[in-house]
C-alpha cells in the first residue's frame, strides 16, 4: 500500500510536465488553431537556455525560470510573425507540417552542436535533498515541481477564462473581424498568445533540466505523449488539458508499478478508448 502512495505521487510529478506542456498546446490550438508540433523542440530550448545561462553567464536556476521562457517566447513570436501567421485560415495540416519541420530543424541544429547524450544541470542548492514522508523519500525538487506547475497552470487558466484580456482573446478567436472593429489589434494579440504558449513550454523545459539530461531529443520523446494528453482532454480546452495532464501522469505511474512493460503505451491505449467513446475528448465541445 505504501508503494502505491509513492507511485501516485511520482505520477503527479510527471503529470505536472504533461499538464504544463499540454496547457501550452491547448492555448495555442484554442487561440491560433495551430497544432504546434514544434512544442517539444521549444521545451528543449528552454532547458538549453537554462544551461547556457548557468554555464556561460553564471545566471542561476531562479533567474532562468524567468529569463528562459522570455527568450524562447521571443523566438516563438518571431516564428509566428515570419511563418505561422501566413497559415491562418488554412487546413490544420499545413500548420502541423510546418511546425513539425521547424521542430526537426531546431533539434537537428542542437544535435549537431551538442550530441545526443546530453549535458548535466544540477539541482539548485536550495532545493537539494529530500524529506521522508514515511511511505517514500520525496526529493524536495520534485515537490517543488508539482506545486510550481500547479500554480502556473491555474494562473494561466485564470488569465484566459476570467480576465478582460482573456475575454478579448477568446472573442478574437470566435470572430476576429468584429473584435478588430472594436479597435483591438488582433494579429498582435495572436502573436503574444503564441509567445505565451511557447513560454510555458520553455518553463517546463527549465523545470525538467535538473531531473532529466539537457538533451536535444528530450522534447521529441515527450511531445507525442503530450499530444495524446491533449487529444484525451479535448483539443483547446484549458482546464481539460490541465486535469488530463495530471491524471495521465498518475495512470502512467500506476502502470509502471503494475505492468512496467506497458508504461510507454498506456497513454495511447487510453487515447484510443476515449476517441472511440467520446471523439471530442473528455472535456471538449462538439465543433
Amino acid at each position, binding site marked *: 500500500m505504501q508503494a502505491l502512495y509513492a507511485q501516485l505521487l511520482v505520477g503527479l510529478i510527471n503529470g505536472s510536465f504533461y499538464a504544463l506542456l499540454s496547457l501550452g498546446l491547448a492555448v495555442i490550438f484554442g487561440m491560433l488553431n495551430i497544432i504546434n508540433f514544434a512544442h517539444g523542440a521549444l521545451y528543449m530550448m528552454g532547458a538549453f537556455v537554462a544551461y547556457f545561462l548557468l554555464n556561460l553567464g553564471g545566471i542561476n536556476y531562479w533567474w532562468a525560470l524567468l529569463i528562459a521562457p522570455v527568450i524562447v517566447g521571443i523566438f516563438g513570436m518571431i516564428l509566428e510573425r515570419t511563418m505561422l501567421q501566413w497559415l491562418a485560415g488554412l487546413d490544420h495540416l499545413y500548420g502541423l507540417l510546418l511546425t513539425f519541420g521547424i521542430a526537426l530543424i531546431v533539434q537537428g541544429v542542437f544535435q549537431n552542436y551538442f550530441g545526443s547524450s546530453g549535458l548535466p544541470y544540477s539541482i539548485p542548492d536550495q532545493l537539494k535533498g*529530500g524529506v521522508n514522508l514515511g511511505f517514500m523519500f520525496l526529493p524536495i525538487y520534485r515537490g517543488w515541481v508539482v506545486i510550481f506547475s500547479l500554480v502556473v497552470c491555474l494562473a494561466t487558466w485564470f488569465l484566459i477564462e476570467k480576465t478582460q484580456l482573456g475575454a478579448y482573446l477568446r472573442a478574437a478567436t470566435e470572430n476576429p473581424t468584429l473584435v478588430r472593429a472594436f479597435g483591438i489589434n488582433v494579429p498582435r494579440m495572436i502573436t503574444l498568445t503564441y509567445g505565451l504558449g511557447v513560454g510555458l513550454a520553455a518553463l517546463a523545459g527549465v523545470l525538467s533540466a535538473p531531473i532529466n*539530461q539537457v538533451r536535444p531529443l528530450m522534447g521529441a520523446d515527450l511531445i507525442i505523449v503530450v499530444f495524446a494528453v491533449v487529444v484525451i482532454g479535448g483539443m483547446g480546452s484549458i482546464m481539460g488539458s490541465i486535469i488530463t495532464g495530471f491524471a495521465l501522469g498518475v495512470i502512467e505511474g500506476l502502470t509502471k508499478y503494475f505492468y512496467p*512493460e506497458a508504461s510507454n503505451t498506456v497513454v495511447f491505449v487510453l487515447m484510443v478508448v476515449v476517441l472511440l467513446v467520446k471523439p471530442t475528448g473528455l472535456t471538449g465541445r462538439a465543433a
Partner: protein
Amino acid sequence: MKNTISALLLGTAIALSVASVASADDKVVKIGVLSDQSGLYADLAGPGSTLAAQMAIEDSGLKAKGWTIDLISGDHQNKPDIGTTIARQWFDVDKVDTVVDVPNSGVALAVNNVVKEKNGVYINSGAATSDLTNAQCSPNTVHWTYDTYMLAHATGQALVKAGGDTWFFLTADYAFGAALERDTTAVVTANGGKVVGGVKHPLNTADFSSFLLQAQASKAKIIGLANAGGDTTNSIKQAAEFGIVKGGQKLAALLLFLTDVKAIGLETAQGLNFTETFYWDLNDNTRAFSKRFSEKMKNSAPPTMVQAGVYAGLMHYFKALEALGGNPHDGAKVVAKMKTIPTDDPLFGKGEVEANGRVTHDAYLFEVKKPSESKGPWDFYKLVGTVPGNQAFTPLDKSTCALLKK
C-alpha cells in the same frame, strides 16, 4: 574501318579480362558503417565510429599499395527492420563487403543473419549481447569490443566479492537488457549472491522514479543497471535525487561509456564502478590515437571503446586481407583468416579471434574520479583492476556456438 573494329574487339577483350579478374580476387574493398547516427547511442558510436573507420583505412596503408577502399555509413535508428533493410541494400546494390559497428543488440542480431546469408564480413563493435558468439554465432562474424558476459563477470564478480550479495535489476526491455541481466544473474548466484527482484523498462525512458522507488523498496544492496546510454545516465542521475546511494544501496552501472560519464557530470557519477576494454588515457598508444581522433571530432571528444573497437577491428580485417593477397569477396574465408592471425593493435593490445568469433583482450575495472581529481575535460577514470583477456570472456568450453561442435 577495319582499325576501328579491331580496336573495339581489343577493347572488349581487355574489358572482359578485367571483369574476370574483378570477380575473383581483386584489391577493391567496400565497408559500411551501420550505426545509430542520431539516437541515444549516437555519441558513443555514430559519427565517431565512421571517423574511426576512416582513420583505420588511412592507417592501414593499403591505399598506397594499390588497394581501393570505399566507406559508406548508414543510420539504423535503433530499429531492426531498418538495420536489415540497409544491410541488404548494401550487399545487393552497393556491393559492400563488410559491415562494422552496429550498436543496439536487437539490431545487431538481426543484421548478423543478413551478413551470414550474404556471406559478408561482420565486425561488430557496438553491440553487447554475448549471443553473437554463442547461440547465434556465425562464420561471418567477429565480435570485437565487449559483451554482456564480460561486463557481468568483471563488474558483477567484483561487486559480489565486495559484499554486494543481494541484487535488484533495472533492465532495458530488449535483447541487450535481457542478455545482460541473464549473464549477471548467473555470476551473482554462482558467487553466492541472490537476485531479489527486477523491473523491465522500455528503451529510451526519461523518468525512472517509479522504477527506482521499487528498487529502493526491495532493500537490495546492489541495484544493477542492465541498460545503456541515455537510460543509464537518467537512472544514475535520478537515483542520486531519490537518495538511493546515500541510503546505503550501491548502483552497478553494468555498461557505462565515457560519453555517459560526461553527460552525468563527475559530481553525480563519482565513485561508480564499471568495466570497459578501452580508455583513451590508458597508455601512450591510446593517448596518441585519441589525440589524433579528437582533433578530427566535433566537440574534440576522445574515442569511446566502441569507436576504438571499430578502428581496431578494421585494422585486423585489413591485416587478413593483405595476408590473403587480395579481397576474395567471400566473407567466411576472410573471417577464417582473421581467426588465424593473433590480434595485436595499439588500442586493445594482444589477443585473439576465437573460433566462435569472440575477440579476447584485457578488460579494465574503472572507478569514476571525484571532481577534485579530474585534471582535464575528459579526465574521468581511475584504473582499479585488470581482468586478463583469457579470463574476461566466455570460456570456449562453455560457449554454445554451433561452430565449435565439429
